[in-house]
C-alpha cells in the first residue's frame, strides 16, 4: 500500500511535457516582451532627456611618471570619455582599451604626470556631455608591486596585525580554565561582545567601501546584507554538521584514538568522562572545541577581509603605516585570541600545537588578505569578503550564545548579570582599542 501511494505521488510530480510547457510559456511571454521593447521604434518610452552618465573611478595607482585611474561606466547607457585631469587641471592622457565605454565596461586612463609622494591628488574624468567625475586620493604612494620585498612587507604587517595578536590572546587559556562558572560566563559573554563589535565593524566598513568606491549600479549595499546572511546560515549549517559528526563519532568509544587530526577528535581524557555519561553530556563536552574551531574559522574569514582592507589602504595611499597604527591593530586583535580560547575553558586540556593551529587559522588569513588586497585590489571583492567575515562572526556569536544558554540551564541568558556586564564590557574594549587604529 505504501509503495502504491509513493508511485502515485511520483506520477503527480513527474515532469511531463505539459509540465515543461506550463513552465516555458511565461518565459516565452517575457522574451516576446523584451523583443518588443528593444525593437519598438522608440515611441513607447522615449524620453527627450538623455540619461545622465555616471563614471566610477574605482582605483587610482601612482606609477613611475604617471597616474593610472581605473574607471567604469556605471551609468544607464554607453558613454564616451572626453578628457582627464589631475587636481582639476586638464592633462593629456591615454585611455585603454577605448574612450567609448559600454554599460558597466571598464577602462584604464593613463595620465603622464610627475607626482609628489605623500601629497593628496584629485583625479577627474570628463565625459562627452561635460560632466566631471572625481576621485580624491589622500596621499600619493607608489603602487605596491608584487615583488618579494613588498610581499614580505605585507607578510610582516599581516603577522603583526593578525597572527601575533591572536596568538597573544591564546595565552589567556590557562587563566580562563581556572575561573569560577560566573566569571567564566562573564568571559564568554565578553567574547560575544567583542565579536558583535567586530561583525558590526565589518558591516560598516564594507558599507563605507560600497558607498565611496562602488557605483550604485552594483547595488553593493544590498549585496553586503545578502552575502552576510548567506554566510551566516551556511556556516550555521556547517557547524551543526561538524558537531553532529563529532558526536556520532564519539559514540563508539574505543575505536578511534588516532587517525583523525580533527579538532573534534575525542582524546583519552574525554573518553574517560564520557564512559560514565549520557550522549547529551558527551555532546556538551565536544561542543566547546567545535565552537572554538568555528570561532577560529570565523575570525579567520574576518581577518582575511581585514587584510584585504589593509592591503588596499596601503595601495590606495589612504593610510600611512606607522608603528602606532600597527600597535593599535595588535591591541584590537589580541581580544580575538581570547574569543577562541574562552569556550574551551571547561573542556579537556588542549595541546599547545592545536591552539597554535587555531591561532593560525584565525590570524594567518590576514597575511593572505594583505597580499590580495595590496596587489590585486578590487573593491567589490573586498566588500564581499568583509561581508562573508561579518556573517561568520555572527554565526560564532550565535554558537556562543547557544552554548551559554545550554550550560546555564534553567537560569537563562539574560538573568545572569555577569553575562550582561561581560557583553557590554566586550564591546567597550573593542571600542576603546579601536580608537587606537
Amino acid at each position: 500500500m505504501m509503495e502504491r501511494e509513493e508511485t502515485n505521488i511520483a506520477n503527480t510530480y513527474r515532469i511531463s511535457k505539459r509540465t515543461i510547457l506550463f513552465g516555458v510559456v511565461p518565459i516565452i511571454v517575457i522574451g516576446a516582451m523584451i523583443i518588443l521593447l528593444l525593437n519598438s521604434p522608440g515611441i513607447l518610452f522615449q524620453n527627450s532627456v538623455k540619461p545622465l552618465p555616471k563614471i566610477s573611478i574605482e582605483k587610482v595607482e601612482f606609477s613611475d611618471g604617471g597616474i593610472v585611474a581605473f574607471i567604469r561606466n556605471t551609468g544607464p547607457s554607453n558613454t564616451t570619455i572626453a578628457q582627464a585631469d589631475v587636481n582639476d587641471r586638464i592633462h593629456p592622457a591615454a585611455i585603454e582599451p577605448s574612450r567609448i565605454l559600454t554599460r558597466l565596461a571598464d577602462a584604464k586612463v593613463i595620465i603622464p604626470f610627475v607626482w609628489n609622494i605623500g601629497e593628496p591628488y584629485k583625479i577627474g574624468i570628463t565625459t562627452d556631455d561635460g560632466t566631471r567625475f572625481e576621485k580624491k586620493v589622500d596621499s600619493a604612494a607608489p603602487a605596491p608591486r608584487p615583488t618579494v620585498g613588498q610581499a614580505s612587507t605585507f607578510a610582516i604587517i599581516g603577522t603583526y596585525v593578525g597572527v601575533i595578536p591572536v596568538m597573544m590572546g591564546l595565552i589567556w587559556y590557562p587563566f580562563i580554565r581556572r575561573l569560577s562558572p560566573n566569571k567564566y560566563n562573564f568571559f564568554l559573554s565578553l567574547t560575544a561582545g567583542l565579536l558583535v563589535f567586530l561583525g558590526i565593524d565589518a558591516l560598516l566598513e564594507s558599507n563605507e567601501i560600497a558607498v565611496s568606491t562602488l557605483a550604485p549600479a552594483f547595488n553593493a549595499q544590498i549585496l553586503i546584507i545578502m552575502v552576510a546572511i548567506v554566510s551566516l546560515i551556511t556556516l550555521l549549517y556547517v557547524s551543526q554538521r561538524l558537531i553532529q559528526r563529532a558526536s556520532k563519532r564519539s559514540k563508539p568509544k574505543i575505536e578511534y584514538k588516532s587517525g583523525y587530526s580533527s579538532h573534534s577528535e575525542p582524546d583519552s581524557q574525554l573518553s574517560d568522562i564520557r564512559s560514565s555519561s549520557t550522549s547529551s553530556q558527551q555532546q556538551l563536552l565536544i561542543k566547546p572545541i567545535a565552537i572554538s574551531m568555528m570561532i577560529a574559522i570565523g575570525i579567520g574569514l574576518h581577518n582575511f577581509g581585514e587584510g584585504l582592507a589593509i592591503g588596499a589602504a596601503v595601495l590606495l595611499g589612504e593610510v600611512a603605516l606607522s608603528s602606532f597604527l600597527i600597535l593599535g591593530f595588535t591591541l584590537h586583535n589580541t581580544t580575538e585570541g581570547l574569543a577562541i580560547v574562552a569556550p574551551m575553558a571547561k573542556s579537556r586540556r588542549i595541546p599547545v600545537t592545536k591552539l597554535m593551529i587555531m591561532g593560525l587559522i584565525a590570524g594567518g588569513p590576514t597575511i593572505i588578505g594583505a597580499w590580495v588586497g595590496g596587489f590585486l585590489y578590487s573593491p567589490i571583492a573586498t566588500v564581499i569578503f568583509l561581508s562573508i567575515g561579518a556573517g561568520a562572526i555572527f554565526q560564532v556569536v550565535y554558537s556562543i550564545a547557544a552554548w551559554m544558554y545550554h550550560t546555564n540551564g534553567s537560569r537563562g541568558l539574560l538573568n545572569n548579570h555577569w553575562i550582561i556586564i561581560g557583553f557590554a564590557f566586550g564591546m567597550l574594549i573593542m571600542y576603546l582599542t579601536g580608537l587606537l587604529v
Partner: protein
Amino acid sequence: MSYPRIVVLFGIAISIVFFAISTMLYSRSSLSDQNSSKLDTVGGHTPGYPILKTTGDILDPTSFVINPKNAVVDPMKYLREFNYGRVSTSSNGTVIRDFTLIASDQQTKEVSPGVFYNVWTYNGTIPGPTIRATEGDLIRITLINKGTKFHSIHFHGIHPSEMDGVFEGIAPGGRFTYQFTAEPFGVFLYHCHMQPLEEHITHGLYGVYIVDPKQGRPQADEMVMLMNGYDTDFDTENNFYTVNGIPFYYMHHPIQIEKNRLIRIYLVNMLEFDPLNNFHLHANLFNFYKTGTKLIPDEYTDIVTMNQAERGILEFSYKYPGMYMFHAHKTEFAEKGWTGLFFVKDNTSESVNQNLNVTSTMNNTIYSKSNFSNATNIVPTGGLK
C-alpha cells in the same frame, strides 16, 4: 555530515573564491602592461614627462582639433573676422550699417575636444560675430529669435533706453531691430540681457563690438580675442577656459604673426563665475588702452587683469622670431584651456621654421594646413572697408 554534501559545500566555497580572485585578476593591470604595437603616444608636450605609447585612445585637448562640423567656432577664422555690416548711406551722408543676428538655444556643439554642450548662440558661434563700425555710423541690428526662450541684445556704449535690450525681450519667433549711433569709439561687447542673466551669458550669448575712431588707428595686424569659459556640468564653476571659444586651440594652431609688425588685439573678458581673468604676453610688453576709449595708452605692461565685461586694446610687436606663449596668468585658467601661442615669423629668412620643433604637433591634423593658409591673409588695418 554526508560525504557528497561536504564535497558540494567545498565546491561552492572554492568556486566563490575562484570567482573573487578572477574578478580581481580581471580588473588588475598597470603601467608596465603597455603594449607597444600601436603608434599613438601621449605626454610629449611637457619636458621631463614620459612619453607613453598606448593601444587605446588618446585624450588630449591640448593637441586635438575639433571637427569643424561640430565645433562651436573656428577660432582661427574668428580671430581676424570683423563684420562691417551691409553698408548704405543716408540722405544726410551718415553711413548706415545693417547687421542680422539670429539667436538660437537648441544646438549642441563641441566646446572642447570631445565635450558637447547645449550652446545658446548669436549666428551659431561662441563668441558671436564681431560687429565693427566707425564712430558716428548708424548701426541697425536685426535680432531674429529662432530659439525657444526670450532673448535680447544689450550693447555696451551710448544709446537710448529702448535700444538697451533689457526691458523688452524678443519672443521666440519674433524679431526686433536695434538702432543707434556708434559712440564713443572704443572696444565694447554685446550680450543677451534676459533673466536669468547668468544662464543666458554662460550658455554663450555674447560677442565683441568695436567702434573705430573717425581718424582711424595706425596700420596693424588686428585681431579680436574674447576670453570666456564653459560650465558644462552646471556647478557654477567653469570646466573650461578659452580665448576665442575653444580651449587650447592656439596651442596646436599658433597664431602666425610677422616680426616687427604692429599687432593690435581687441581683448574682451566675458568670463562668468570667476571674478577675475587676465592676459599675459610672453617675452614682450604691450601698450594697453583701457576700454580703447583713448588714443594714448594707459599702461606699458605684460599683463592685464579684467573683471567680467572689462576690455581694452593691446598693441605690441615682436622683436625676435620664434614661438611665444600668451595665457591667463591665473594658472588654473591656463591649464584648463586659456593658453595659446604666437608664432613670430621672420619674413626675411626661412630659418625660423627649421629651428622650431614645436611645429610637430601642429601638423598632425588635416585642418591645420588650411588654417595656416588663412592666417597669411592678414586683414588690413581698422577703419572702413
